[in-house]
């Protein structure tokens, strides 16, 4: 990887007695789309605001292109932000909103007009330039906010849950607008969200935060398939987390003793597990197979359907083993048509040994 563009080095933010951000370090390369994700109060917005200079870190150093940012006032930085509320100026029309950042930089009126026009066209809202903000729809406002932030052609764009006020289908549309924009411009996007689907849909890398600390940094696939901790596995959702103790290790197959029987998982050869260790195993809901007949083999368990949730082409099932252990399963609708399930029916669920991911036990506490 090339030189990092943005660096957080051991950043801590304390308010009186509470710690909002607790000693985090993070490097972001130029041109990356990074999503910082977590539930509310996890410190993700504070992290973003420190980059914009709207909060001052208590400890540590923030750098942009190797230059220390800590002491720079917000207006001395090139880190425009798109707010959750969008924060468009209601007393200015679209054109003047977009020109605001150019005006503060002392750019001539002709030049301002030209550059504002260019960005309004790029965001396909050129015909709205004379409108008032209260005459725009949610999606249009979104585009104005983006144009206003991007018109100064910054190296970085910060986004603080910009889509959370939109309705579902508009969110999907704006996601593709944002993705395309980021690819076309080649600038860095730092995107804060609580929505897993937004983060996974757009980001090159996802940062998962909890209680002011970074839980995991990785590609969406990494985070989804190989969660670094139980917290991440639970946060990413649609995972089944099984706890047990190691019974035996035979070459690369680990046998786990659980409350409902023996579970087998593949492990890499260099892994250091000992018999008697407590472990958590994660099986994604979409990795579980269903069958109406008992299949011989490992990781096969009899269960019954507790509930069924139909979400478009995907069906979410809640299954229960004989001992009460619950499993979440996601299947395509057409896959389920094949097994023709009826409610209350007895089924067998199974998963292959290489689809059970063992959580790093050191991060379980």
């Amino acid at each position, binding site marked *: 990887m090339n030189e990092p563009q943005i660096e957080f080095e051991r950043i801590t933010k304390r308010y009186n007695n509470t710690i909002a951000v607790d000693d985090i370090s993070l490097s972001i390369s130029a041109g990356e789309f990074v999503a910082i994700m977590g539930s509310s109060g996890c410190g993700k917005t504070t992290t973003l605001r420190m980059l914009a200079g709207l909060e001052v870190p208590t400890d540590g150093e923030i750098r942009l292109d190797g230059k220390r940012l800590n002491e720079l006032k*917000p*207006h001395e930085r090139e880190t*425009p932000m798109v*707010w959750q509320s969008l924060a468009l100026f209601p007393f200015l029309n679209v054109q003047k909103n977009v020109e605001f950042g150019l005006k503060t930089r002392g750019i001539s009126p002709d030049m301002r007009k030209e550059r504002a026009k260019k960005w309004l066209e790029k965001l396909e809202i050129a015909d709205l330039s004379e409108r008032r903000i209260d005459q725009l729809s949610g999606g249009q406002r979104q585009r104005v906010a983006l144009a206003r*932030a991007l018109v100064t052609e910054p190296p970085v764009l910060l986004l603080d849950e910009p889509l959370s006020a939109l309705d579902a289908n508009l969110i999907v549309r704006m996601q593709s607008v944002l993705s395309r924009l980021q690819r076309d411009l080649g600038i860095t996007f730092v995107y804060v969200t609580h929505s897993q689907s937004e983060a996974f849909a757009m980001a090159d890398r996802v940062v998962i935060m909890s209680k002011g600390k970074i839980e995991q940094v990785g590609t969406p696939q990494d985070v989804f398939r190989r969660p670094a901790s139980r917290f991440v596995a639970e946060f990413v959702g649609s995972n089944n987390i099984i706890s047990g103790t190691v019974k035996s290790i035979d070459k690369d197959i680990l046998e786990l003793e659980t409350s409902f029987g023996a579970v087998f998982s593949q492990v890499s050869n260099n892994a250091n597990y000992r018999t008697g260790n407590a472990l958590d195993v994660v099986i994604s809901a979409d990795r579980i197979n269903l069958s109406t007949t008992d299949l011989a083999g490992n990781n096969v368990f009899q269960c019954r359907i507790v509930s069924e949730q139909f979400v478009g082409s995907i069906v979410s099932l809640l299954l229960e083993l004989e001992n009460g252990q619950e499993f979440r399963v996601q299947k395509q609708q057409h896959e389920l048509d094949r097994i023709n399930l009826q409610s209350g029916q007895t089924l067998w669920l199974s998963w292959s040994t290489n689809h059970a991911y063992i959580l790093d036990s050191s991060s379980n506490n």
Partner: protein
Amino acid sequence: MIKKVDTYALTWRFPLIIWQLLFFVGPLVFMISITFFLVKNYRMTEAFEMKNWIKMLTRGYFWDAYAYTLWLATLSTVITSCIAFPASYALSFKVSETTRRWAIFFLIIPFFTSYLVRTFSWYVVLAESGVFNSLIGEIGLGPYKILNTQVGTIIGYLTFCLPLVIILQTLSLANVDRNLIEAAYNLGAGWARTLLTVIVPSAKVGLIIGAVFCFILSYGDFVSPYYLGGSKPPTLSILIIDTTKSGQQWPRAAVVAVMMMSTLMIVAFAAILAAYRKPR
């Protein structure tokens, strides 16, 4: 479709309508009709003549008083708003919510006592042998004549209007969306530019309403120009008193009052229009 009369809504509106008719529309109509009456042998008699209007509006002293009142009220509005703004800004952005609440409470307290009493208490401070002059006399300055001058009048207006204007300004500044202020900083605006191009336009309604109140109160006030300003030159309210005292000229005083009312109406209407004007 027949429009049904909503008796419930009407019942609740009724007192307001009655009140407006009895105490605003009624007296206004009465006052306007008086302007056409005549005074004969110190007694008002019903008539419909333009004499009073011609008499007042062709006199230089009326227009002098009119211009002077307008000037004093404008000066008071500008000075009060300018003194109030830093205080309101500090109360809105620089202190905790608890402090703001206490400050607003203390700003209401002056209204507990009569404005007249507060005005008279200035005598003690502002007289030539008063507190102020003896204090600055200690450092070899003064004494200055403050009572019975324009400065005295403005001090009176400030006593009257400043707490109210600070309250109105603070309420609107405190409600300015903090995100807008941050967005301005974020887009490269320094403190002064943010104040002028974002905070002031955002709080425009409250700032204008505050100024309008100050203008209206100063414009119609009788106490300050009379007791602190020495009533020379006279303002319109002093002119009304003088006119009624000299020969029972109620109709001519009514002309002055109607002129005052119309001026205030125009100013208030224009100000509200400006406050709620949509951006182009």
